């Protein structure tokens, strides 16, 4: 039975609950329920921000989105970004966590701190730093890579290199975050498993595959799901570094939506784009969680 006060709350407590909770619930209605419903309504109208006439158009905005080449390019770029960003940040984050974990305490903490530094640095500043590092003529990266015979690269100024460059920067910034999550996951693995494996003379690769990896499945699932959700919403990096260019080579869906809504003021079309992206994220998240449930049943 929850609460020593029993099932029936005293009048005073009822009042306290009511007075405290009502404004908070109103907030969530105002900033989540109402906007979602409103966004659905907008997406069914031709809704130029500044015009008075906002005629109902049914699913025309959705049809427009799917018939627009730029939408498909943005979708392709978004998926490309998500796939490579999420896989790199997961694999490298795990590798980094295991590497850092193999050091003793003072060094372990210092490392953790160093690799976490990019995570707490503002994305806008990081983007500016990397625009400068990627500068094709005076940039530091081309200079350094020149010593080992690589490049010169055009980085964010070439349609082929722009997405890998943005992904590289994002991985640099966020790998410390997944590392910290994996480090926390690693501490939950009981030490005696490793001792038992050592007594049995198991090789380190087998220890990794048979102990570490299976016991990290909840962390891996968490890392994959949250990073996928945020990868599909990638915006700041692209906005800062390329605004989707050169051409449409790095245009992603949220940028496409932002431009449609806040540069061309087509709120109806932008809302339709938002719902298309939202449903994609939902479906992918459900699939990921299902896949993990079925294959690992933890």
């Amino acid at each position, binding site marked *: 039975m929850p*609460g*020593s006060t029993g*099932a029936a*709350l005293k009048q*005073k*407590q009822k009042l*306290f*609950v009511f007075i*405290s*909770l009502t404004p*908070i619930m109103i*907030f*969530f209605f*105002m*900033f*989540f329920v*109402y*906007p*979602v419903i*409103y*966004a659905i309504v907008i997406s069914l109208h031709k809704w130029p921000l500044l015009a008075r006439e906002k005629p109902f158009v049914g699913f025309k905005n959705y049809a427009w989105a799917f018939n627009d080449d730029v939408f498909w390019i943005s979708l392709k770029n978004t998926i490309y970004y998500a796939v490579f960003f999420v896989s790199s940040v997961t694999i490298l984050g795990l590798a980094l966590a295991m*590497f850092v974990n193999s050091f003793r305490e003072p060094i372990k903490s210092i490392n953790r*701190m*160093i690799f*976490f*530094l990019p*995570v*707490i*640095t*503002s*994305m*806008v500043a990081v983007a*500016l*730093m*990397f625009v*400068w*590092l990627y*500068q094709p*003529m*005076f940039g*530091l990266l081309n200079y350094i890579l020149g010593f080992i015979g690589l490049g010169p690269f055009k980085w964010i100024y070439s349609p082929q290199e722009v997405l890998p460059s943005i992904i590289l920067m994002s991985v*640099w910034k966020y790998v*410390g*975050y997944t590392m*910290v*999550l994996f480090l*926390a996951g690693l501490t939950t693995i009981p030490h005696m498993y490793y001792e038992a494996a050592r007594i049995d003379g198991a090789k380190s690769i087998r220890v990794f595959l048979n102990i570490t990896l299976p016991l990290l499945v909840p*962390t891996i699932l*968490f890392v994959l*799901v949250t990073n996928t*959700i945020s990868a599909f919403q990638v*915006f700041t990096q692209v906005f800062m570094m390329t605004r989707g260019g050169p051409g449409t080579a790095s245009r992603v869906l949220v940028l496409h*939506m932002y431009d449609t809504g806040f540069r061309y003021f087509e709120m109806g079309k*932008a809302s339709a784009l*938002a*719902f298309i*992206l*939202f449903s994609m*994220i*939902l479906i992918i998240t459900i699939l990921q969680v299902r896949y993990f449930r079925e294959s690992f049943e933890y």
Partner: protein
Amino acid sequence: MKITTGLVARKTIKWAVLFFLAIITLGPFFWMVSTSFKPSDESIAFPPTFLPEDPVGFKNYYTVLTDVPFFRFYYNSLVQAITATVGALFTSSLAGYIFAKFWFKGQNILFMFILSTLMVPLFVIIIPIFLMIRWMNLVDSLWALIIPGLASAFGIFLMRQFMKSIPFDFLDAGRIDGCGEFGIFARIIVPLSRPAFSALGIFHFMIQWDSFIWPLVVIENINKRTLPLGLALFTQQFGTQDYNLIMAAAVLAVLPVIVVFLFAQRSFIEGITLTGIKG
């Protein structure tokens, strides 16, 4: 003999890898600071100089601080992030407490409803909220930045999880001593929930401090820009070649957070871990 040399070799490689990774991680920061002390012509010299050969002292910083209302950006960011964080801490702890320690009809439905709002990404509701803020005449005001951050579904969840572990005896003791309901919350529950407060406080503050797309949409006036927005639009003011100035601005923007982080890194990382593992 053979074993020890193998061990030494392995250790050396390990340290070399560590050194390499640290350079990759810290290199861009070093380069940012180094560039910010160079004069314009040296900043685009090729081959680049690792340390400024002809350092200009704080001249670039001075230019940035005087040509752009940078202190204004700091002020706006601080006001936004602190107000929203204090508000979110209050609402989250109050709601979390109620969901953890009271029972009333429809409680589960309300709690599930709050959790379900976590699934809604910002870009879905950004247009209606923008229209709402515009209708309230709050465009170009700090209120537009603060209000949407005053409550946090995740914060309520975190607080509820934490406060569930506080024994009911404490509440009863307060009631017997004649404490009012709000008094119990403020004098007993809040002090006992310190770790949850610091975790959520850091988490929410960082989200607010770094928020970009919402200020970009809702702020036009240069004097109302927050730090990320001011920094982003700063590049429009100067030619793209003035990397020494851009890097000085970037240093000014990231320095406060890094300093706070270096002093409080343990609670930072613990907070992020605590808030990160929510799944």
